[in-house]
């Protein structure tokens, strides 16, 4: 609609609250971490300019390097193991097997439960004496495998990482929504030609969602992997020996120590790693494979 002169004042009046919030809670904070990351500052005394010293100190700190590494592993596992699992389930459920609505609802549960409650649940499961996992192992006669999963250096990080992989509901639902827009006639034609469900998934479904929802999900999952905090905070608080730390947990601890400069520098690193991940994933998906020529049903109508 063309904006009438008389509408200009009410328009800006309507926009201002949202704009102010965006400015105060998005624009300024992003600039803020960038600026504070080059300062030595405890929040009270006068800040002192440090140039890149904070960054140098970060990368000299084994705990931080380990945190970055953990986040990268987390992002890769989420993007390239969790999402493919979700894709398999999306393909299966989008053929609408018996009870698919029920299963979709169930798979989505972990997404609506708070991260902190889930982490507490898994802490209970991994508990050395009373946990469900050791209980199952003992009851099937494999009691010798029972251990303090979160307290042992070898198992702590895998334990923190693995339980989340099989919660595929979120990515599954995103891909299911995409799959249902694929024109049914492709499948009909393929069925007439004698293609099995498996062949149809490989040659029709996956190529058609590859650049849309699959790409989105891999990007999302990796980015989520980089932001992990509640899980590790609640399950291990980074222990044992910082083997389960993440960038955000490291940042949180620096903030607790009132080391604003180092905390902000790790925030900047987090944002940079995130951008690098997004760019790389895009590049992998854009660069490889022929352009999909077939169009989806939705697009043509």
């Amino acid at each position, binding site marked *: *609609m063309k904006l009438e002169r008389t509408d200009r004042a009410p328009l800006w009046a309507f926009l201002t609250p949202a704009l102010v919030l965006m400015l105060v809670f998005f624009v300024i904070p992003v600039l803020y971490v960038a600026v504070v990351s080059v300062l030595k500052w405890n929040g009270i005394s006068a800040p002192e300019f440090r140039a890149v010293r904070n960054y140098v100190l970060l990368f000299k700190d084994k705990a931080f390097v380990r945190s970055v590494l953990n986040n990268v592993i987390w992002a890769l596992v989420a993007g390239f193991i969790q999402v493919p699992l979700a894709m398999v389930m999306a393909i299966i459920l989008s053929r609408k097997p018996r009870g698919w609505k029920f299963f979709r609802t169930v*798979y989505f549960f972990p997404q609506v439960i*708070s991260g902190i409650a889930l982490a507490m649940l898994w802490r209970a499961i991994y508990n050395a004496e009373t946990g469900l996992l050791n209980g199952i192992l003992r009851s099937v006669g494999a009691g010798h495998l029972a251990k303090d999963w979160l307290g042992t250096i070898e198992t702590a990080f895998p334990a923190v990482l693995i339980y989340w992989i099989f919660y595929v509901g979120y990515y599954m639902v995103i891909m299911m929504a995409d799959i249902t827009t694929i024109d049914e006639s492709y499948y009909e034609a393929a069925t007439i030609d004698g293609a099995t469900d498996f062949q149809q998934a490989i040659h029709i479904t996956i190529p058609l969602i590859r650049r849309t929802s699959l790409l989105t999900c891999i990007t999302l999952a990796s980015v989520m992997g980089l932001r992990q905090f509640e899980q590790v905070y609640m399950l291990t608080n980074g222990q044992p020996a910082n083997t389960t730390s993440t960038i955000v947990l490291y940042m949180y601890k620096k903030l607790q120590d009132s080391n604003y400069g180092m905390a902000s520098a790790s925030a900047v690193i987090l944002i940079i790693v995130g951008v690098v991940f997004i760019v790389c994933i895009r590049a992998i998906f854009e660069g490889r494979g022929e352009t999909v020529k077939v169009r989806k049903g939705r697009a043509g109508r």
Partner: protein
Amino acid sequence: MSETRVRPALRGRELILAVLRWILIVFFALYTLFPLVWLFISSLKTNFEFLAGSPFALPAVPQWQNYINALTVAGLGRMLLNSVIVGLSATVFNVVVASMGAYCISRFRFRGRERIFTLFTAGILVPLNALMVPYFVIINKLGLYNTYGGMILLYCAIGIPMSTFLIRGLMDSIPMELEEAAYIDGCGFFGRFFHIILPLSRTGIVTAATFEFLTCWNEFVFANLIVSSEKLRTIQVGIRYFTNQFSTDYVSMYAAIMISIIPSIIGYILFQEQIIAGMTSGAVKG
């Protein structure tokens, strides 16, 4: 549609695929449900039953007392109330501000619109956890540390990009002709907003509100950061402290975790369509 297709009897590879398919479907369902069921059953046991018995055994007598313990001794009732107060207030402010913003971006062409639009979209992608330090400082500077107001303001603000996105999506689909007709009839800026656009974007607003409330309800990081007073703790922050308080009283701790989970699950079952729409449409287009 697989169910309308006439299938020949399954043979060989197809049979294996069908079996595999159901193994996967059931595995993922059990993986999600079984721990929750275990937690629920354990929360109804006595500590003795829980420690001595098999993890699969049912309690002799369901100990609802554990739930009463969690609610009263640990003050969980108060925390639930805090979560409701903060969540509802933040949601109301959030959708009001977001609908107003979405109306301007969706229905008008003006200078700076593109830039504002980009700003809102970029907001969805910002890793909020990275902004812990500035949020802590800003809330302190505003004198809102340890207040409901601080949590409400922060929650309202961080949900703005998402809510604006969801509401704008619906507003974009309202035909311009409707608004133009009203304009010719002398309906002004506010009249069109309240009488035409707002009622027609109801579903988008409900989706945004549901999503925002769920986010507030489950939020932990910032609630933990900007509130230290026990009286103001939300349920998510509260249950974290149970680990200290109930370190040996496992069953009450499990009851407490259940109490924090149950509202989310009930809410999800009631508002399933909105929640799924909110969480996925933002992801796909954002």
